[in-house]
């Protein structure tokens, strides 16, 4: 075989390989991936791509929240302790095992946060909010948010949620819902108790301060430095 013939064959072979490679690539691109991210596309229309909802709307970010927290919420929606018809409809016919896998999936995502939503809030409101978050209000029997949700307020493993990077409207709605019993957690329901001790102005102050904080790293802390102030049915398990 002459060298020219051999190089012509190898050139043809190269073209064929390239062609087969491209064909494979188009076929693979057409088939959606077999992973949890693809399975959870149903969540993206509200919670944003990969669960990192923009904070301009109402829907909460779920990416990076502790798995135990997310699992508890899925169960709460299913069992009516949280009221949302869409959530209940979507997960009504799911095994606990799959709900846990969903929770683990979103918990495992470590994604950047958008800038803080609330800007130019009145300084008195911010001051009251920060006071409640960091120190609580002893006269009302309100513990500091940070005493359970972590000093950085990014939550604590396994099931205490972070409170930063959430839309202000969402925070207001949750605190309000807890106050009137529309949102509940497993008993003893500490957040129900705490929100009933807050005045409406306090609720606004806390939501305003929390939604005005920038988040650099949103991952939950590994553990709490001290014993939590209250006995709670969820958040610690």
């Amino acid at each position, binding site marked *: 075989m002459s060298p020219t013939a051999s190089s012509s064959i190898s050139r043809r072979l190269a073209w064929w390989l390239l062609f087969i490679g491209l064909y494979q690539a188009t076929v693979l691109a057409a088939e959606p991936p077999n992973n949890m991210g693809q*399975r959870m596309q*149903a*969540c*993206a*229309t509200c919670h944003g791509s990969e669960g990192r909802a923009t904070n301009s709307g109402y829907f909460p970010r779920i990416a990076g929240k502790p798995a135990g927290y997310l699992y508890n919420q899925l169960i709460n929606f*299913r069992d009516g302790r949280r009221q949302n018809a869409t959530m209940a409809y979507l997960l*009504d*016919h799911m095994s606990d*095992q799959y709900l846990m896998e969903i929770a683990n999936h979103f918990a495992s995502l470590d994604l950047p946060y958008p800038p803080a939503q609330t800007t130019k809030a009145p300084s008195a409101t911010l001051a009251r909010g920060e006071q409640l978050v960091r120190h609580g209000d002893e006269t009302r029997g309100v513990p500091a948010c940070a005493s359970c949700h972590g000093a950085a307020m990014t939550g604590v493993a396994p099931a205490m949620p972070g409170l930063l990077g959430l839309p202000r409207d969402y925070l207001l709605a949750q605190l309000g819902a807890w106050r009137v019993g529309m949102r509940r957690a497993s008993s003893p329901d500490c957040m129900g108790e705490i929100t009933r001790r807050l005045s409406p102005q306090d609720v606004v102050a806390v939501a305003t301060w929390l939604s005005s904080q920038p988040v650099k790293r949103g991952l939950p802390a590994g553990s709490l430095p001290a014993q939590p102030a209250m006995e709670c049915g969820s958040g610690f398990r």
Partner: protein
Amino acid sequence: MKEMRLKLAKTLALIMLVCVGGFVFLDWIKSQEVPSIDDRPFNELLAPQVAQRGAYLVQVGNCAACHTARGGLPFAGGKNIDTPFGTVVTSNITSDKLTGIGAWSAADFWQAMHHGRSKDGRLLYPAFPYTEYTRITRDDTDAMFAYLLSVQPVRQINRPHALQFPYNTQAALAVWRALFFSPEQYEPLKQQSDEWNRGAYLVKGLGHCQACHTARNMLGATQSKLGLSGGLIPMQNWYAPSLASPAEAGLQDWPMEEIMQLLKTGKTAHSSTLGPMAEVVFSSTQHLNPEDLRAMAHFLKELPRQVSEKVVRKFANSEGQQIGQSLYHNECAQCHGDHGEGLGDYPSLAGNRTVIMNSSVNLVRVILSGGFTPTTEGHPRPYGMPPFGHTLSDTEVAAIATYVRNAWGNKGEAVMPLNVQKSR
């Protein structure tokens, strides 16, 4: 004049009273036709294997779906069932002696299941599908009762129903029953196999498939003579497609294995269960034992065909199709493919019966609400369809629905924005 009117009113009232009385009597007569079987010795019921069989039957009959409220204790009732006539509240069927059925006898339970009468003789509302359960054998109701007696008692007083007049009266129920209900037993057809008969017994009795898959009349009665020819599920706004028509959900042309796969796992290569049927698969049919699964599939496969005629009164127009097409390519093609061919686990829309059948109710519902097929042993990690109800307008949903009903060789009536609004 005034006197005459009064006399007329009195006469009318009297006629009404006689009629209602007649109906009550008729209902009573009918309930005498099938004599109750004497109560069984109680210790026979207490045998563990009886309760075990009962547990299976209660699961297949999906009693918990109605008798357990969201987040409530199993079988303690308290779930609201919305009907066009008001709200029926399900009852506590735990073994609690005061508020449940713990003080009932097996004969009382049979009377409820077979005759639609409570222990105290009160007529029951047919939201409780005794119109189908009446075909369950005494042997099976005894087993179910034995199981329910073994369920953890829950002290929870039944809340009263909230029904409009006259539906909230026993007289109205007696009239309804005289018109639409007779206790009956399942009579096996001799020319059919045992397997077919078992399937028929499950579909027509315990499975109460007819409760959804048959259209209800103005008074909310299912009409057996229609067969399982499909119907809109009242208040839920889902259409239970015809099991008799191969153009809807008929299974006549399916291989047996695929029918069983759908009932067992909720998903096959060509079909998915969503909405109320996802619940049925999740709570009931996935638990069928292999023999019953095959029997049910056998009976459904051999249901007599009813050809449903294609109805197209409103046609898609080319301008709307262009809008629909561009929306489809932005929102849907990523999973369902550029040509509706379906990618991976996602179903094809070309030739998909839910997409093209006469009723567009389910197609619209799926676009608005999305959903997951149920998690089952055979299909434990389903992919989800996103809900588009809050991101797309009625007009946009109608455009997409009309487009997919008329693309890739599909043919179906155009969907109007008003149809979408009704489903919200």
